[in-house]
């Protein structure tokens, strides 16, 4: 039995170390650990999105970090056995960003609603387009086969279809995730659909590429996307992108780790269900504030403090049934 003041050994396992959205969550987790103090937090992620390898890292993590593991993954369905293994080993696990798969005993999921996120972006888009407008809108999907991007696309599509029925929606087309291929694909898509009024992506890189295309060609069109990468925020500030829908990744990591620490340190029961940490629209109105927030880890911590305090003080307000997660 470790002594009472031994550091808690915890881990945050996430999809990849090289992409910004996941890093935001890692920053959140780190912040929670350092706020709580005396937590030995291991951050592990494959260098590319690679489900099976993440499974492997997770399996190592539940052995090394017995006090609790937060798991962020893009391929939750691969984790049925590993999650049960964690339960067998008595390691508390919280699912982050994607709902835990059926057939496991993990019953806390902390994430935003991706359908909602897509809808928010759709609403922002609709605001830019006068009623009765006709024409084409083109959608892109950076990683075909990734469920959460599909949910965002579905959400966005439903809003546009409902509110601007005169618009013809093309796609989604494959827009590629690696930065140069994302640029090339969008560049070609823009050329192949020269008359579209708007181009909408749902990944982190799309806004960056769409802004650069406008800059290079001098053509102005409506561009929107999700995830507040630094370069994407810059694109909003420069006026090339009307809005970014941010899933507020940082909050997910923070809340997940805070709850795990509370649970282990003070024996507080982990809540059950889907904790929706919410989403945020970044547009011209709040862009400066968000850029300031995203400057470094300290600014993030400071800016999110009010929100995290609020959410952790009243869990029930944020909790729904896991089955509702979308």
């Amino acid at each position, binding site marked *: 039995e470790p002594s009472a003041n031994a550091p808690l050994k915890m*881990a945050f396992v996430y999809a990849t*170390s*090289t992409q910004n959205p996941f*890093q935001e969550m*890692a920053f959140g987790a780190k912040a929670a650990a350092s706020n709580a103090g005396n937590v*030995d*937090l*291991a*951050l*592990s*992620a*494959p*260098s*590319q*999105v*690679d*489900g*099976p*390898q993440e*499974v*492997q*890292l997770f*399996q*190592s*993590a539940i*052995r*090394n970090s017995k006090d609790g593991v937060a798991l962020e993954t893009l*391929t939750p*369905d*691969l984790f*049925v*056995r590993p999650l049960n293994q964690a339960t067998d*080993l008595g390691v508390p696990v919280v699912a982050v960003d994607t709902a835990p*798969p*059926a*057939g496991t005993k993990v019953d806390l999921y902390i994430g935003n609603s991706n359908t909602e996120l897509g809808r928010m972006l759709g609403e922002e888009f609709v605001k830019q387009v006068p009623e009765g407008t006709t024409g084409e809108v083109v959608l892109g999907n950076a*990683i*075909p*086969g*990734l*469920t959460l991007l*599909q949910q965002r696309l579905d959400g966005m599509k439903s809003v546009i279809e409902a509110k601007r029925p005169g618009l013809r929606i093309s796609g989604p087309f494959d827009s590629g995730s690696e930065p140069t291929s994302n640029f090339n694909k969008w560049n070609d898509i823009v050329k192949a659909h020269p008359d579209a009024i708007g181009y909408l992506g749902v990944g982190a890189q799309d806004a960056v590429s769409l802004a650069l295309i406008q800059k290079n060609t001098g053509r102005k069109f409506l561009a929107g996307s999700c995830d507040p990468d630094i370069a994407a925020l810059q694109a909003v500030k420069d006026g090339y992108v009307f809005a970014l829908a941010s899933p507020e990744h940082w909050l997910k990591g923070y809340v997940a780790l805070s709850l795990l620490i509370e649970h282990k340190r003070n024996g507080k029961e982990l809540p059950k269900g889907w904790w929706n940490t919410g989403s945020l629209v970044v547009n011209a109105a709040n862009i400066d504030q968000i850029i300031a927030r995203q400057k470094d880890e300290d600014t993030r911590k400071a800016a999110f403090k009010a929100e995290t305090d609020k959410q952790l003080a009243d869990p029930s307000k944020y909790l729904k049934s896991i089955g509702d997660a979308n």
Partner: protein
Amino acid sequence: MTEVDRRVTTTREGNSIVGFGRRVLRAESSSVLIATIVLVLVIGALRPNFLTIGQLRDVLNNSVYVALLAAGMAFLLAMREIDLSVGAMFGLSLITSALLMRDGFDPWLACAAGIVLGAILGLANALVVQHIAIPAFVATLATMQLYRGLAVALGDGQQVTGLPLEHSFFTVLGGDWLGLPVSVWILIAVTAGLTVVLRFTPFGYRVRSIGSNPDAAAFSGISIPRTRLYVLVLVGAIGGLAGVLGLAFFTSGDPNIGTGFELQAIAAAVIGGTPLRGGVATVVGAVFGAILLGVVSSGLVYFSIPANWSSFATGLVVLLAVGVDSALRSRQRARESMLGL
């Protein structure tokens, strides 16, 4: 008899069991095995938690897929070919079996279908290589995208879930037997089988002959296209097998699963002692190469490396591990005597 002759003769080990064992060990590249063990021990010394049965079992279990693909890749490398589509064949077989199961087919039947599909994909590779007359590298670069695309398209870009997890397919193949995961037993069986094929059958001789000297092989009447076809089909079938084992463990189908496995499999085979230049191969080495890579990535988790440095650290440790392997290997080579002209 000259002095040299005598010397050469004394090095002959005859047919003794010891000599046989030693030769097999040498042929099967023990150095990567030792390097793996050294790595495990070093990690274990620094982080004792790592040295638990459960953890080591997990490492083995996680390495099964790449190890199987690497074993097949060793055959290909031995005949100077490369198959880049193995990861995609793995993914497509997995998704297809999963879809069949979801649609109500008997899981064991779906499992067989997955393996057969793998073999068919391998056959398709072979036919493309033959009839378009392009190197397997280029052909499989294209079919890699094709197969991956099919995996995404068939599942409509979605993960395939809702499978009958209580069925014996999942409990047996995803379960344990005599303290080891069944998939590890299957890996052991496949490794042994492929080693026998490579070392003790005419087919294995042909594969290595072609890689060793393609002109002489053709001159000797060995059909290179036919041998390549068999090997590509074999690699496909192994990919299919890995796919269904993956399905049994992961219990769901992800269309992007296995992305990047091709490079890992090649790397594992090469680290294990199968050079790209052909003629030589070791299935056991390839499997241990995969396990070595698995140990590196599992082991690093124990060292709270800052996330931004984890990729850097992985590269560094791989470098160290192959460095140890290479040092062992060169000692062995030195013993094998240097030759002049």
